[in-house]
């Protein structure tokens, strides 16, 4: 059992847990993820590691209440326990120690961005970040991102904070202004990552995305997490989740992500009867 030592509500639907998991904390690296299960009949869901502290033996996860499991998780309090918490899984983000890196985070995709930006910033990389959300209240980790970015840009769809519009527009403007960028790291909803990929493609700017496919075991045993990268089938849980964006088959990834859409709806309905949201 893995105790929730701290809970913070980042937005009405986005929660942060600091979880007591010393073995995971000891080995975690930016870009990796964990698999969580919350009850005996529960499913295994992947969540990116948003921060970790090997000394304290804790791992931070951030989740949005979208499906049944995350909604049930939203009801847990400090001191409650998660049944299973396994990781760190997947490959760490590539190490970068110099040059200019632009981070683009959409929605709760800012969570997985944060540890990578922190590592690069501390290693001496010039970091600029663009974070976005539908509206100001849904923006997460703004203060944290400020501490690990030389410059932070904000975009909201409704203009309630920063640029009114998409993160991609801010990125395009930076490119147009001739800003140096060696690598762009984009994490967020699939549509947003794909849009960033199309912005950088014509300029040949190296772009990394972290894909988020359906997973079961997370150890390379089932192949549920197949993505096509550079024409080859990869298992995101062991080969990824970070891939070269210009090689990822987004059409396929989006389509595979919808495989269980109907069942998710059914589960959500069943869960609602149980007194959920």
């Amino acid at each position, binding site marked *: 059992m893995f105790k929730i030592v701290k809970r913070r509500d980042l937005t009405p639907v986005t929660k942060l847990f600091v979880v007591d998991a010393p073995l995971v904390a000891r080995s975690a690296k930016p870009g990796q993820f964990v698999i969580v299960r919350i009850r005996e009949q529960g499913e295994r869901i992947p969540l990116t590691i948003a921060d970790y502290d090997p000394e304290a033996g804790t791992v931070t996860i951030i989740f949005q209440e979208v499906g049944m499991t995350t909604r049930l998780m939203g009801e847990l309090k400090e001191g409650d326990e998660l049944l299973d918490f396994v990781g760190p899984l997947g490959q760490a983000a590539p190490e970068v120690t110099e040059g200019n890196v632009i981070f683009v985070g959409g929605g709760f995709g800012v969570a997985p961005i944060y540890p990578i930006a922190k590592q690069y910033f501390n290693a001496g990389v010039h970091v600029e970040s663009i974070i976005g959300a539908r509206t100001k209240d849904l923006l997460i980790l703004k203060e944290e991102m400020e501490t690990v970015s030389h410059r932070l840009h904000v975009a909201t769809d409704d203009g309630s904070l920063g640029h009114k519009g998409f993160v991609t527009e801010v990125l395009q403007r930076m490119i147009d202004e001739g800003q140096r960028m060696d690598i762009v790291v984009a994490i967020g909803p699939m549509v947003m990552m794909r849009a960033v990929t199309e912005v950088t493609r014509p300029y040949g700017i190296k772009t990394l995305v972290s894909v988020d496919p359906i997973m079961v075991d997370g*150890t*390379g*045993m*089932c*192949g549920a997490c197949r993505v096509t990268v550079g024409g080859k089938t990869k298992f995101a849980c062991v080969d990824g989740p970070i891939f070269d964006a210009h090689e990822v088959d987004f059409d396929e990834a989006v*389509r595979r992500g919808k*495989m269980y859409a109907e069942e998710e709806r059914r*589960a959500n309905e069943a869960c609602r009867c149980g007194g959920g949201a």
Partner: protein
Amino acid sequence: MAKVKEKRTPMPSQDPRERIGNFDEVALGYTVEMAVEEAKRCLQCKRPTCLEGCPVQVQIPEFIALVAEGDFLGAARKIKETNSLPAICGRVCPQEEQCEIRCVLGKKWEPVAIGRLERFVADYERLHGEGDDIQRVPSNGRKVAVVGSGPAGLTCAGDLAKLGYEVTIFEALHAPGGVLVYGIPEFRLPKEIVRAEVETIRKLGVRILTNVVVGKTVTIDQLLADGYEAVFVGSGAGLPRFMNIPGENLNGVYSANEFLTRVNLMKGYLFPEWDTPVKVGKRVAVVGGGNVAMDAVRCSLRLGVEEAYIIYRRSEKEVPARAEEVEHAKEEGVKFKFLTNPVRILGTEDGWVKAMECLRMELGEPDASGRRRPIPVKGSEHIIEVDTVIMALGTSPNPLIAGSTSGLETTSWGGIIIDEETGQTSRPEVFAGGDAVTGAATVILAMGAGKRAAKGIHEYLTKGS
């Protein structure tokens, strides 16, 4: 002595029409009378040939004699001298290729039903026994780590605990048992039985830590640095193979591992009471001819598909699955398409499987495996309409451990290289066995390997002291 009955005593089973509507066990096991009747068929050979076929040397005629006398608990003790998981082996061992094929009765009549008797004895003991008088051996203060809780790891851990070692099993998944829990379905091996066997191992003093992926959460080198004096790797062969044909990533194509894990480990058949869904359409094709393929296709029937096919590129003679499983699948209405090989999977506009294009095959010269090589028949392309495809093409060892352990030598396909006698690898403190060494094999071979390695580890750790 009365004349020997030519035919073995049949074992009752659930009616095929009924059982495809549930996940309960298919074979129901012998009654006391049936078991005694079958046991009396055994000739009690002076030089029993059946013994040679058993990878863990179960004292077959001795235990059968005890069954014939009605001493079922005595029979259980006899089996357990060499086989710690008889309830499992009695259900899943390929007896027809091991002990039963060598039974002298089989020369003229049907061999003694050794597997059914083993199963009966183990079940009888579970229901009527006093519970094992498990003696926890005082600790010798020395720590050994075991990676993986499949039959190889459980057996090795149990044997080491009996020698006084402090054993910790590290298991990647949330439940112990390996393929016994995530692969083999409830209707063939009730999970209750696996749980009971795991409990027995725990009572011996073995600690089981789930949710630890060795190679990720900790490495073998870290375990050795943390005070474990030796490590046994029983991590199985979990990496699924695909065919690399067009359309394999369409929605509705599974590896058998994913499909079976969703059904068995995650209890997908109980969705939405259980949270993990498993999707099957109306027409399913399972590609492959092994036990895994039979399990997958029979699970799909129980999930309510209308047509279920086995697509196998060789002929019925070459099918590697246990004869009983093929028989059961046929009774349940599975359609077998032998000498057929898929070349591509066709999808609908929105990316779901709608059909599979196959070629007919004919058998040519024997290949490296000794089986006749299937060769495609020109112009034999044909379409099979299906909406779900399950690839059961075999598995290989997961590279995670070899890739994270310096100096651990493997074969070209990833099998860990060991000394056959002791299980020792190229790293003297690291031992291995089971599917991680051999590639996908059998429960009993994995158990045998776990046993040998326990002995090897004990010798290694006591050498010179």
